[in-house]
């Protein structure tokens, strides 16, 4: 786990002091609402429908138990006992009083956390594969690279006022768990037999009003050239991104307008210009950072464990949970444990202070002090011994965290929507809850298997609906909440943008529409075929017919 150095510490403390001063200047009337708004947003503070919201950065979704306990403590002391884990691997608090904000930031600083880079037109908190350091399919731990980018981009003077926000995601595995093709820059680390280690560089992906699957502009970038290359991309964007129109200001619009080839050509030209001037600092930095990501002290274990196998045979609930929520670990005798924050009928991504503490305890006792947050709004204990899983399961059951639904219909992503968000057109959470009520834990859900439903309350697409196998977008139609349905999206290495099926549905109708889509899939699927595979094979036709009748 990375520890902040003194430099970070100084920045964070200084920012809190400045923010504290700004709060009192706003309260005394010295700062106007507009002036203060710019300052509070730089510190992750938004004003939502019912209260102030604080968005806390969780770099690459990685937390230690001390940090998780602090998050719980803040939820209890300053909020209403819970927090919301987001699709950006962050946590948001919904109810923090303005006067408490500086104290909350102080509390976060005690555990090396802050809210820098969670808002504004700059390089946002870097995200990464939540299985980093544990996944069987990764070639290396991507977090040191993410940390290198974080350090380089934090308060970067040239890139603090970009045309729009900028999101970077990193993975080092062929199976993409970080949605790299939906980021402003996506990086995939690979070992090439001839060229050695390097990144595939993807630029201009994104969701929102104009969704794009990002094109690759470089298939192999040597790791030592990472920062100069990112600098070249950012410089090009900073100069040519559209500042005149917020809807066209993201880099995806620039990449699309120029064409990926021309964009790549211009990046390469700038890169060639700056490369000779760049020293090997990034390489040395990387070595320093790597030293902080110590590999846990893994035990040498056999691949199976008798007590684990016995529990599996004896306890069907445990067996279901194991089958659904575990992923293979690179070390024998270990597993990656997913903890879905998606209880039946619950609010996706919400966790109570007690639940956070349970996860912190388990990470400490059984999980090498490591916790991850996923962009699917779930938590992960990346390193758990098989033999400890029965005890972990028991504790999770007691905390209401043992739902065995990872990747299933009821493992739904939903943004806060109109229940909290000032920008929303419609509610998202109640739709997720109704779908979950209908499907969670049913035989049908098990029969359907892998199916990702994603719901956004407006076109900003924080709920990633474009990338849902089934996507739902809330719109406001003459004062009524209506929901558009999209099918065939995907966030992983098979990245695709879902297609709109046709006219939207009301809040009741959308639940039935999803059911109809699922029925259609079950009627058409070949043996062992996933929803996405069936959709890609048969196309939208049969689904549209089932939804709207033959025209």
């Amino acid at each position, binding site marked *: 786990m990375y520890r902040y150095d003194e430099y970070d510490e100084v920045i964070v403390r200084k920012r809190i002091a400045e923010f504290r001063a700004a709060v009192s200047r*706003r*309260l*005394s*009337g010295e700062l*106007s*609402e507009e002036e203060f708004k710019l300052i509070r947003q730089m510190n992750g503070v938004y*004003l*939502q*429908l*019912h*209260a*102030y919201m604080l968005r806390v950065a969780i770099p690459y979704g990685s937390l230690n138990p001390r940090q998780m306990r602090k998050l719980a403590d803040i939820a209890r002391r300053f909020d*209403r006992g819970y927090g919301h884990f987001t699709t950006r691997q962050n946590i948001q608090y919904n*109810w923090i*009083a*303005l*006067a408490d904000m500086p104290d909350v930031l102080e509390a976060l600083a005690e555990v090396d956390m802050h809210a820098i880079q969670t808002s504004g037109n700059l390089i946002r908190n870097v995200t990464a594969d939540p299985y980093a350091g544990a996944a069987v399919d990764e070639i290396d731990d991507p977090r040191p690279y993410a940390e290198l980018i974080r350090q380089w981009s934090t308060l970067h003077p040239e890139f603090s006022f970009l045309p729009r926000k900028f999101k970077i995601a990193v993975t080092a595995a062929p199976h993409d768990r970080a949605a790299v093709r939906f980021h402003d820059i996506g990086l995939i680390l690979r070992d090439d037999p001839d060229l050695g280690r390097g990144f595939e560089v993807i630029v201009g992906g994104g969701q929102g009003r104009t969704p794009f699957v990002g094109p690759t502009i470089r298939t192999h970038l040597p790791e030592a050239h990472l920062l100069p290359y990112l600098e070249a991309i950012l410089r090009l964007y900073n100069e040519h991104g559209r500042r005149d129109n917020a809807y066209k200001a993201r880099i995806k619009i620039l990449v699309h307008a120029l064409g990926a080839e021309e964009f790549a050509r211009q990046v390469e030209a700038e890169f060639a210009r700056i490369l000779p001037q760049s020293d090997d600092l990034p390489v040395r930095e990387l070595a320093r950072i790597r030293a902080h990501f110590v590999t846990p002290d893994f035990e040498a274990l056999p691949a199976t464990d008798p007590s684990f196998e016995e529990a599996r045979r004896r306890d069907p609930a445990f067996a279901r949970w194991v089958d659904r929520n575990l992923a293979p670990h690179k070390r024998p005798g270990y597993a990656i444990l997913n903890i879905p924050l998606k209880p039946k009928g619950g*609010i996706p991504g919400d966790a109570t202070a007690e639940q956070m503490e349970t996860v912190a305890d388990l990470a400490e006792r059984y999980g090498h002090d490591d916790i991850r947050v996923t962009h699917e709004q779930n938590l992960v204990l990346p390193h758990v011994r098989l033999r400890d899983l029965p005890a972990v399961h028991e504790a999770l059951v007691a905390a209401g965290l043992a739902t065995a639904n990872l990747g299933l219909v009821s493992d739904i992503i939903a943004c806060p929507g*109109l*229940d*909290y968000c*000032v920008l*929303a057109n*419609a*509610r998202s*959470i*109640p739709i997720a*809850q109704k779908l979950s009520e209908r499907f969670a834990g049913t035989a049908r859900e098990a029969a359907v298997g892998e199916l990702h439903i994603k719901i956004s309350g407006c076109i900003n697409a924080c709920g990633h609906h474009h990338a849902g196998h089934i996507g739902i977008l809330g719109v*406001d139609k*003459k*004062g*009524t*909440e209506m929901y558009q349905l999209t099918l065939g999206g995907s966030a992983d290495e098979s990245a695709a943008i879902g297609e709109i099926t046709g006219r939207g549905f009301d809040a009741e109708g959308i639940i039935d529409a999803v059911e109809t889509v699922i029925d259609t899939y079950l009627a058409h699927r070949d043996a062992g075929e996933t929803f996405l595979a069936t959709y890609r094979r048969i196309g939208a036709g049969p689904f549209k017919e089932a939804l709207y009748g033959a025209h």
Partner: protein
Amino acid sequence: MSVVNSLRPGPGQIVTANEIMSGRAVWLTADGSWSDDPRAAAFAESAEDAAALLARAQADNAASRVELVALVAAERDTDGRPWPVRNREIIRALGPTVRPDLGKEAAAG
């Protein structure tokens, strides 16, 4: 919790904002104070009345009492008290529909 769906402009308007310290949704009353309940709000039926209410609210914004001042469409409930028309405003009045335990009613009760 059900939300009435309607975008009728409404026969009148009320002024709403967020109280600066807590951020909670509040409504401007006839005596110039801010209430947690839109039913206590001053109900403007003419453009002039609405403008006067808005001016008063903006003065409170300048004096750092409230943020995000807005005039919103309202109608009268069966008891003749103001109630907002749009979903968004109704949700602001009631709290998150998915957490009725945290809503205004719950807090008051």
